[in-house]
């Protein structure tokens, strides 16, 4: 359903700060796939997600969703198809608006904003009911500014916002990285629950080998802007944290070898 063909993004092209953040990435997601993405720092995981979400337009390649080419669509237009949760709990919510106002904005994701009342009684009742399902006691606070909540509470609400209207695609970018271990576990449990319940097609970047090994049915490893390995089906189910760590170690050694080789060549020829 999601298809990336030969997607490349270069930041600051033609300057000394040029970064080839993703290069020639091909990726196909089946309907209902739950894909975890891991990779070293700066390997292009966030860039890949942002390319899909339309935070910027890619330099080359095509992105299509459900057979529609969305490569040139602006971010706000793609949002009608995608729900997002960001790494920083401050990015996904509007701090000065109340919990209820934030959620009602999400309940209109991708719809034209009109002059009807945002929060009538019916809307508030539904918000209270769905917030209650988070089991965080937030249903009594829906008229408080969302900025007064903790990071974990905000991420849980952002997840609720992203999935309020069932998205065609759910994008999660290290959405538990900024949380304490307990909140992180809570948000991961909520993620697993909603993805399973609604059978959401999901792309989840994670920093945790543990999450990568235990969640999802497909695993992608990125390095230097490229996808270097994919685990699917039975192979993915067999994969353990140790396997992933071993693979990373391999990558690191290969890099070192590359560097030593380059140094040697330099010493010999320059």
């Amino acid at each position, binding site marked *: 359903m999601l298809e990336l063909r030969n997607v490349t993004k270069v930041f600051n092209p033609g300057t000394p700060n040029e970064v080839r953040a993703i290069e020639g990435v091909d990726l196909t997601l089946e309907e209902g796939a739950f894909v975890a993405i891991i990779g070293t720092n700066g390997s292009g995981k966030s860039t890949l997600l942002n390319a899909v979400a339309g935070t910027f337009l890619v330099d080359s390649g095509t992105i299509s969703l459900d057979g529609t080419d969305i490569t040139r669509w602006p971010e706000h237009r793609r*949002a009608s198809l995608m729900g997002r949760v960001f790494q920083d709990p401050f990015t996904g919510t509007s701090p*000065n608006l109340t919990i209820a106002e934030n959620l009602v*904005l999400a309940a209109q994701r*991708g719809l034209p*904003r*009109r002059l009807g009342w945002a929060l009538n009684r019916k809307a508030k009742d539904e918000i209270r009911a769905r917030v209650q399902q988070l089991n965080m006691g937030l249903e009594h606070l829906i008229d408080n500014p969302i900025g007064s909540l903790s990071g974990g509470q905000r991420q849980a609400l952002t997840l609720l916002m992203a999935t309020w209207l069932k998205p065609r695609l759910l994008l999660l970018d290290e959405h538990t990285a900024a949380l304490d271990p307990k909140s992180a576990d809570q948000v991961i449990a909520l993620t697993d629950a909603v993805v399973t319940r609604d059978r959401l097609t999901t792309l989840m970047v994670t920093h945790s080998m543990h999450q990568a090994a235990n969640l999802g049915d497909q695993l992608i490893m990125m390095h230097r802007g490229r996808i270097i390995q994919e685990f699917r089906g039975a192979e993915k189910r067999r994969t353990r944290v140790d396997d992933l760590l071993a693979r990373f170690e391999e990558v690191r050694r290969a890099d070192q070898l590359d560097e030593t080789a380059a140094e040697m060549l330099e010493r010999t020829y320059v």
Partner: protein
Amino acid sequence: MSLLIGALTIGFILSLLALGVFISFRIFSFPDITADGSSTLGAAVAAAMIVNGVNPVVATAAGFAAGFVAGAVTGTLATKFKINGLLSGILVMTGLYSVNLHIMGRSNVPLLGEKTLTTYAQAIGTTVLGGRTSLNVMGWEVSTLDASVLGLTFVAIALTGVLLYAFFQTHLGTAMRATGDNSRMIRALGVNDGNMIVLGLAVSNGLVALSGAFLAQYQGFADVQMGIGMVVWGLASVIIGEALVGTRQLGFIICGAVMGSILFRLLVAIALRLGLNPNDLKLITAVFVFLALILPSLMRKFRSRRVRLSHA
């Protein structure tokens, strides 16, 4: 007494300006100085139409519409053409100076003897009071003209405030507030944040122009210079209002902006009465806003130093 009523009336009229500035500076964090030009624009359009025999209600509405367009232009420069927000406002404000001169045909249009909202107000007041030319308020003699203009201005501002509050509770208004608060989030929720800014600045400058149109009819003339310093004036009112209500709740802040505008106008009227040179007014307003802007961080510094000293 007529000094007090005059200050109140102008305070109410300028509270529309404060509400406009509140939208651009506070809701969108957009330093929009188009207001200096659109305030005069509203006055110019209304005055030119009234002189040409147009119904003053229609002329005032046209003033609002002209400001709306001016704000939309600033918003478009800033979002579609990616010009710095401050510069977008400067460009439109500068351009408006010529536009205003063209609309008025000269630098000053007197409205004496014309049919304006002020004469309407007087007519209504006279009917209501049964033809009396003055009334007695707690021992003070107040002319029917002053009282009815103040009354009608109050009604107009209350209506605008309520409408504005209601607007910000709609889906569209909520999306606008979120745009100023967190544009990344609102884009991820499928809203074109650029369009929100264009519309927001349009409404903001529409209100500012409306205030200009009222002011011209109240003081009896439109002048090409009358908008100078309006942004800073509006900002001062908003800051005073925020200090008065001390909360971030929208309804209170809207009331606060109106109260701030009135209080500031009263303070100015008193200062002028006590012999303040009118030429110094803008300088004093600017210094006041400067102080209000730096005061919070100065207080924080002062407090943290006190804490450190008490620990030592």
